[in-house]
């Protein structure tokens, strides 16, 4: 039984926020769903991939977020319902398409889900994607919990079809990755096929069309504002006896505001905005009029705050508005109940909390950051690269498990900003530096955003080594397939695209494929590649160790141990190589046989041949 698909109407079920979004889409009769995986959005696609075949919908993991969005746009413009989901920075990739799709509008409901990541739990920035709704003129829904994820996804399709506009549903990590009760309804089979009715004066955005369509968009936004005024997603809750304090909030911040207000014993009214753009101006104006002090509680950027201040100014209201501009709440990182309680105390000039003494001073604990797994082929690659270059190279890295190579002992990342940035930035680094430059990119990331950079390097004659770390999967986000995979989600027939053919097709003259488990060959390939007068490419190919272990069902035979008599305690296996199975305690290095993945790379790393296969 699959919870997302098989939970019957009227039942209450525990769902992840992301699963609730998937269920909502199924109940809305979605016909087409696409994604590129990215934390914290990945489980939306994963849930749909699992059930697509049985639910009779089309689902795909697309090459990147832009393609995913454009695919869904093609379907929705024809008249069926389509959804595309991505992490917040994925929307940067898809934004080009979205900004103009707001002009053409849609015929079938089109919902774009963006999952933001305040505190950068799994991301390179904590941008606030509510700005995209403002930038593009796109209606915005902000659920606060799994039940609302489910309800608002359904509602988003209704709003989208009614206004003929795309709708953004925006979550954050503490909404997408929260599990809570969801009471579901019936799954509806939506329209799966629809003939595209030609209308180039709407859908072909040459300048003459775009100028006209921009006005249509602004007219539709006025209608959207009317919907927002009437929407039950924008509602007031009374705590205690209400009174002169009003709190305006949305998204995850609403949850913290509720719990913090109860903790502080506040009497206040809370205006919760679930349909936050276009903001319901009259509703907000009336709420401000009804209260003496207005506190704005929102994570990240002061978007609601600025909206409320503008409405108050426009309506000549005297109420005091308190928020980030008053330093009551931080603009950095995610909130929690304690941060919001502190903010409310400051905003309402309440006495600050008595500071409880911490019971004991903890000694500094050995930290435990995420690390490359035992048997990870990237570990072997980084060891070989360091050996070949003697660490005298510049490393342009990219987004994936292999970014973890930035830490010692590898220190194999010097620059990283976004998906695909390794390839583009390597050219610039090489142009103005004398050191050799090596770009690292994963297989999925190469398809996603690496190819234009490689074409640029060939065409403009840049000199660096591109290493494509091909572990045959999108590992970090949960082992989703990518265009190079020959195995997809069970729902779809897929064709594997050859990385070699793409590289050669870009015009690269020097290409080698190596197995990173073969350290010597990899070291030699890196040395030879760096001697080339132009861009060179090495594909380091070896399946992700987690997948290999899963497919082998534990049947790993090449476990290794350290022969303590042969070991010279040189620490090469812990200082130059890194494996969770190898530890060094009280100057003795040992291999934990239970953790050993049997890759045998450590045996090649040891200069004294003290690491041996278990008989």
């Amino acid at each position: 039984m699959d919870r997302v698909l098989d939970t019957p109407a009227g039942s209450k079920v525990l769902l992840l926020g992301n699963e609730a979004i998937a269920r909502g889409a199924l109940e809305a009769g979605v016909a087409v769903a696409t994604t590129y995986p990215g934390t914290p959005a990945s489980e939306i696609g994963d849930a749909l991939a699992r059930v697509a075949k049985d639910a009779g919908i089309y689902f795909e993991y697309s090459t990147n977020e832009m393609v995913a969005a454009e695919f869904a746009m093609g379907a929705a413009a024809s008249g069926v319902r389509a959804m595309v989901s991505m992490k917040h920075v994925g929307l940067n990739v898809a934004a080009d398409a979205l900004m103009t799709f707001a002009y053409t509008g849609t015929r079938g409901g089109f919902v774009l889900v963006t999952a933001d990541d305040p505190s950068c739990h799994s991301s390179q920035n904590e941008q606030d994607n509510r700005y995209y709704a403002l930038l593009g003129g796109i209606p915005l829904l902000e659920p606060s919990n799994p039940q609302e994820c489910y309800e608002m996804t359904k509602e988003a399709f209704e709003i989208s079809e009614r206004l003929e506009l795309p709708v953004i549903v925006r979550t954050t990590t503490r909404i997408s990755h929260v599990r809570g009760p969801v009471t579901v309804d019936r799954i509806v089979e939506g329209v799966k096929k629809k003939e595209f009715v030609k209308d180039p004066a709407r859908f072909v955005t040459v300048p003459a069309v775009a100028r006209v369509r921009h006005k249509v968009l602004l007219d539709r936004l006025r209608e959207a504002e009317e919907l927002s005024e009437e929407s039950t997603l924008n509602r007031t809750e009374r705590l205690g006896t209400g009174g002169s304090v009003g709190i305006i909030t949305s998204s995850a911040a609403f949850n913290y505001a509720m719990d913090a207000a109860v903790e502080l014993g506040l009497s206040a009214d809370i205006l919760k905005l679930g349909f936050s753009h276009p903001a319901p101006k009259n509703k907000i104006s009336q709420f401000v009029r009804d209260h003496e002090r207005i506190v704005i509680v929102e994570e990240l950027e002061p978007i609601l705050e600025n909206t409320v201040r503008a409405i108050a100014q426009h309506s000549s209201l005297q109420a005091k508005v308190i928020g980030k501009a008053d330093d009551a709440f931080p603009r950095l990182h995610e909130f929690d109940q304690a941060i919001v309680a502190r903010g409310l105390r400051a905003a309402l000039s309440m006495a600050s909390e008595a500071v409880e003494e911490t019971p004991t001073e903890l000694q500094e604990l050995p930290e435990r950051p995420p690390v490359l797994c035992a048997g990870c082929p990237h570990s072997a690659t980084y060891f070989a690269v360091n050996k070949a270059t003697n660490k005298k190279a510049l490393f342009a890295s990219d987004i994936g498990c292999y970014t973890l190579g930035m830490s010692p002992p590898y220190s194999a990342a010097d620059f990283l900003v976004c998906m695909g940035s390794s390839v583009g930035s390597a050219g610039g680094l090489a142009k103005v530096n004398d050191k050799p430059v090596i770009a690292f990119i994963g297989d999925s990331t190469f398809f996603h955003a690496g190819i234009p950079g490689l074409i640029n390097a060939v065409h403009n004659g840049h000199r660096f080594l591109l290493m494509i770390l091909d572990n045959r999967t999108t590992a970090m986000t949960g082992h989703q397939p990518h265009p190079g995979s020959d195995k997809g989600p069970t729902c779809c027939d897929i064709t594997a695209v050859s990385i070699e053919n793409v590289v050669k097709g870009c015009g690269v003259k020097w290409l080698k494929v190596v197995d990173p488990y073969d350290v010597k060959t990899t070291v030699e390939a890196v040395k030879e590649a760096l001697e080339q007068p132009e861009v060179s490419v090495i594909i380091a190919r070896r399946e992700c160790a987690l997948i290999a272990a899963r497919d082998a069902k534990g049947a790993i035979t090449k476990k290794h141990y350290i022969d303590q008599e042969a070991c010279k305690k040189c620490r090469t296996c812990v200082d130059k190589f890194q494996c969770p199975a190898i530890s060094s305690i009280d100057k003795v290095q040992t291999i934990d046989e239970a953790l050993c993945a049997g890759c045998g790379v450590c045996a090649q790393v040891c200069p004294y041949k003290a690491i041996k296969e278990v008989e």
Partner: protein
Amino acid sequence: MVDIYLVGVGGQGIITASRIIGDAAILSGRNVLLSETHGMAQRGGSVVCTARIGDVHSPLIPDGRADVILSFELLETLRALPRASMKTLVVSSTERIVPLSVSTKKLRYPSIEEITAHVERAAKSFLPIDAAKIAAESGVPMSSNIVMVGALAGTGMTGLQKGEFEKAIEMSIPRKLPENKTAFARGYEITDRAL
């Protein structure tokens, strides 16, 4: 309301454990919110999940507010102590997973005596459990997490019934159900008897 703070190392089955708690709460008709760690942090790093049962809106547990710390690894037990107060019960597996920083930075993994002393100073009581051994004896070495769920259920702190936990385990564990139920029962007995 009950706040349970679950900690351990990526790969120990902590999300599954928290989901069982969540399912059991729903079976009992209570409200529940869980927060989980996904993505990059899971690669052998410290992992935190929270389970809040009762009338609550936000999923995160502020410092000093955990009613129970359920830890799957000893060093992580220490790391979780800021969430404890003198009202907190700490239930911890005695499993030790030595982090790479101990090897590379030549740091020391604290001894069980030091850990016990710290926990006893920061919390109401400390219940160490040899979950790995019990799991192995139950026939599924991977079921340490289920032993810990049993240990949590046995404390009686969740307000949930034993049967609700057992039903929740049936919903989440597709394979080796009898062995997992044994693992749960063994964990349950230990804390039920101790408290």
